[in-house]
């Protein structure tokens, strides 16, 4: 059995024991009369058990989250300190290396020239009136570009020279095969290699230590991994001691408190409160985290593509910009066709869903007999339970060809299977139960007294519904519709399958269009570099989507709330 399992088992036993001890101590203190206690005996048990288990569990959780990282850090630190001698030898060599020093001086000089040019450009750019000189500005810019390219070249040679010296040093050191020598070589690699090299080395070290397959397997890596295993074992021993000490300490402290006067019940209450609070904090923090990452990535996107180009541009073709250095010139990131496509499909869906859903709700709540209701309501709920992907292929395989056939027969040319119309229609069907069940609730919650008042005035049923029930329910219905819209805007599956992917800017529902959500899917499911503008644009689209839905939901909730207040 691993140390981990033993530790967990011991902890469980201690917790159970804590419960038992707390309970029986309370029983003793009660002198046979439970009424003598402040709280029921079980509460004392919970109290002691919690204090035994909770701090220890928190430490275990922290270890689970950060333990590996900590072990990596500690090992890296150890390795690099072992490599101190090698690193200083390396520094000395660099200082003595004439060509390296020459390159260094050249780079410094080029950098200062480039900086000077930049400040000149800035001054000239801000200049107004007489001082303006666009031609000179262009020239300066061109000049600066050349300088920067030169500087980049010099820096590459610098890096190459550094690597060369480092690998020469390593080659001489390779003769020594003791573990300490190998570990100092590992530290040397970690300290001097480029960032990505060092990271790769660390990952391989971790893999070997965990018994996974590394990308490379050298004796140096093995020694480093051995050190990592040692460190982890040491940490595990310390962790066990801490956990057991915490459990025992908590147990003793809590047991000390148990007495007939002790308010175990309130204490347990407090602990439960705290637990619930933490859960809600986690929920909120997750939301904040997701929104923050959306924002962060979007800001990166907008530093590459201007905001107005994104919001107002009429051309969406991110496919061309595959490599990072192609950015800006080749990909077009005008999102208007996506917004228009989303709006068109949502509009079609709403035109289908609002009347049908609302009238169904009115019929169900006002006219239908109890027997029909009994069948119809569950049927609608089943409709709501169909996975959207099923709607999607329904749209693609049934509705799409039907529309093509129908409009083809009517004399329209080039009607395609994947059209905004078929996606919108099917999405509308999907949303019907959403609107009808929400509206049904709202209509049912209009007080009967209002209906009676209207009937007593001599109004017929349809007059009553039109003039009293619906106006009273209107805010709630509006709320339901807004929630439905935000659902339609965020719906992906149906549109991916049924509306096509062409970013056409069109109001013709028979053409293929694409939506924000579909494009996000397309952008992120491809095989490409994560940092490219193409991927970043998905975050910007996500942010837009989030803002739209947020606004809809806020308005909807406001409206619904206002409506609630009026009749409660």
């Amino acid at each position, binding site marked *: 059995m691993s140390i981990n399992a033993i530790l967990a088992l011991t902890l469980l036993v201690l917790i159970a024991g804590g419960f038992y001890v707390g309970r029986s101590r309370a029983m003793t203190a009660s002198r046979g009369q439970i009424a003598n206690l402040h709280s029921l005996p079980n509460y004392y048990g919970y109290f002691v058990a919690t204090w035994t288990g909770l701090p220890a569990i928190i430490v275990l959780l922290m270890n689970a989250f950060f333990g590996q990282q900590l072990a990596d850090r500690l090992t890296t630190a150890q390795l690099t300190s072992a490599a101190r001698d090698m690193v200083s030898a390396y520094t000395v060599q660099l200082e003595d290396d004439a060509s390296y020093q020459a390159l260094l001086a050249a780079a410094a000089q080029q950098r200062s020239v480039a900086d000077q040019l930049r400040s000149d450009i800035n001054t000239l750019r801000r200049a107004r009136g007489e001082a303006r000189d666009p031609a000179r500005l262009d020239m300066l810019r061109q000049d600066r570009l050349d300088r920067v390219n030169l500087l980049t070249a010099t820096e590459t040679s610098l890096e190459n020279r550094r690597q060369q010296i480092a690998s020469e040093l390593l080659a001489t050191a390779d003769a020594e095969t003791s573990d300490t020598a190998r570990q100092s070589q590992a530290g040397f690699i970690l300290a001097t290699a480029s960032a990505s090299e060092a990271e790769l080395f660390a990952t391989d070290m971790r893999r070997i230590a965990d018994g996974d397959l590394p990308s490379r397997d050298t004796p140096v890596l093995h020694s480093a991994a051995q050190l990592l295993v040692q460190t982890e074992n040491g940490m595990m021993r310390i962790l066990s001691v801490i956990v057991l000490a915490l459990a025992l300490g908590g147990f003793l402290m809590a047991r000390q408190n148990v007495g007939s006067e002790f308010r175990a019940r309130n204490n347990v209450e407090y602990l439960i409160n705290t637990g619930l609070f933490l859960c809600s904090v986690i929920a909120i923090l997750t939301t904040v985290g997701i929104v923050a990452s959306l924002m962060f990535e979007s800001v990166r996107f907008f530093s590459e593509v201007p905001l107005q180009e994104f919001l107002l541009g009429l051309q969406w073709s991110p496919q061309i910009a595959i490599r990072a250095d192609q950015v800006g010139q080749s990909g077009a990131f005008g999102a208007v066709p996506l917004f228009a496509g989303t709006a068109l499909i949502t509009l079609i869906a709403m035109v289908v869903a609002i009347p049908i859903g609302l009238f169904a709700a009115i019929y169900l709540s006002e006219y239908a007999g109890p027997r029909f209701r009994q069948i119809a309501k569950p049927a609608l709920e089943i409709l709501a339970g169909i996975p959207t992907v099923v709607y999607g292929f329904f749209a693609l395989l049934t509705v799409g060809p039907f529309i093509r056939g129908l409009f083809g027969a009517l004399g329209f040319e080039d009607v395609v299977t994947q059209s905004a119309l078929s996606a919108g229609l099917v999405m509308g069907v999907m949303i019907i139960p959403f609107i009808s069940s929400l509206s049904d609730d709202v209509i049912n919650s209009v007080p009967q007294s209002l209906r009676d008042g209207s*009937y007593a*005035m001599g109004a017929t049923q349809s007059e009553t519904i039109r003039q009293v029930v619906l106006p009273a329910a209107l805010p709630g219905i509006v709320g339901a519709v807004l929630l439905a819209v935000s659902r339609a805007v965020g719906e992906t599956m149906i549109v991916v399958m049924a509306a096509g992917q062409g970013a056409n800017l069109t109001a013709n529902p028979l053409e293929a269009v694409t939506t924000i959500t579909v494009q996000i899917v397309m952008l992120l499911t491809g095989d490409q570099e994560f940092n490219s503008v193409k991927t970043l644009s998905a975050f910007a689209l996500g942010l837009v989507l989030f803002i739209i839905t947020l606004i809809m939901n806020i308005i909807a909730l406001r409206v619904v709330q206002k409506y609630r207040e009026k009749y409660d």
Partner: protein
Amino acid sequence: MSSITKTKLKVRDVNVFYGEKQALKNVNIDIADGSVTSFIGPSGCGKSTFLRCLNRMNDTIDEARVTGSIIMDEEEINDRRLDPVVLRARVGMVFQKPNPFPKSIFDNVAYGPRIHGLASTREELEEIVENSLVKAGLWNEVSDRLDDPGTSLSGGQQQRLVIARAIAVNPEVILMDEPCSALDPIATARIEELIDELRENYCIIIVTHSMQQAARVSQQTAFFHLGELVEVGPTETIFTNPRDQRTQDYIMGRFG
């Protein structure tokens, strides 16, 4: 007094069933025009049920069944062939809890006239609304805020608004089911005053749990008990010299 005025409603052998359960048994009563009749009796004895027979509101309850004859001005109203929608324009109703519609004060009062087409021009409609509000004693308080929602009024004002709404269609009979039970004494006094003023032109029937109120506003009182109409007669007689032991017990507060 009752000998001078003519009979507005003649009720004979009315029985009401909710499903299997009988809520009213053989009710016979004559209700005079131009006067106020109050229904009293312990809770659940069938007062509201009987009131709903008089404007066929029991039709809106699926399981309710009404038998017997109710004659209003020589016309049988408990008859499937009679359109309840037309009847209800002639027999207005005010409920226990004020229930203004979610509309403006003006539209609340104009509701009946509009659905029954009582006004052909906007001016006529405005006149009807104003008259009704004046009769209901609410005009002075709301004349400058007719566009505010009806629900923004106080409880007592809402109840007077609902009365104005009922009289806007110029009914012959007004049924009031505990119209003051949700109101404070001052608002109650106003409504009672109002009932007294309206009496001359309408036949008013009011259900009340307050003996004092019945004594103050009504000329005729009917006592219901367990679905039976136990005793009916001039209010004074009922309160000072009841014939039936149950009436006496109820009035003395011995049960109910």
